[in-house]
């Protein structure tokens, strides 16, 4: 279980390979990459976080996933902060497990919880100026499923 908050970009293929390295019990790796979308003229965004609390909350989310799906063998969460442009990668969640069901479920669970519980805030830049992104009710609904 490894968690990083960083300004640097990541290599999803390398991260998936690391989840598999040296293991013979893994049959499935489910992963997710979040990307900056160019909706509504967005050109870039800046991600702010709460140093200390953000790391703790991601560790708690990951620990909860491992408790719910004990067959999960390894997981990795990377979340970038700072200024990112359209098309840039924001977040990576990778889960390795024996079978696909638990890998998919844990990966989606972590993303849903991260969206509603981890202290990150996005400020978008458009031609019209900058604006803080508003939280979406659909994210709360997604997290409430679990």
């Amino acid at each position, binding site marked *: 279980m490894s968690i990083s908050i960083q300004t640097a970009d990541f290599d999803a293929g390398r991260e998936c390979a690391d989840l598999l390295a040296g293991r013979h019990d893994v049959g499935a790796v489910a992963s997710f990459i979040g990307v900056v979308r160019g909706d509504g003229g967005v050109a870039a965004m800046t991600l702010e976080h709460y140093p200390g609390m953000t790391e703790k909350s991601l560790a708690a989310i990951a620990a909860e996933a491992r408790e719910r799906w004990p067959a999960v063998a390894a997981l990795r969460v990377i979340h970038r902060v700072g200024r990112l442009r359209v098309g840039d990668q924001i977040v990576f969640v990778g889960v390795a497990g024996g079978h696909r069901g638990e890998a998919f479920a844990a990966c989606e669970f972590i993303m849903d919880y991260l969206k509603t519980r981890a202290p990150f*805030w*996005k400020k978008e830049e458009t031609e019209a100026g900058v604006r*803080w992104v508003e*939280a979406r009710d659909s994210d709360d609904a997604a997290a409430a499923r679990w």
Partner: protein
Amino acid sequence: MKLHVKYFASLRESVGRAGDDVELPCERLSVAELREHLAAQGIEALAETGKLRAAVNQVMAEPETSVGDGDEVAFFPPVTGG
């Protein structure tokens, strides 16, 4: 008691600074009481109760969560990461 208060994102910009060291003549109080006190002290952005979230010592808190000496209390808008 002494508290360290932090503000994040749009709230930090509205307040105009990242935090305040607060001294209060009480032993304990709730997050809601602290927020009301700070709003009454002139931090108007803290008056918009509905949209704000809080954390105590870096753990998500409720309005009724109790706060004591030395605690770190953060106020911020709903999170939008991922």
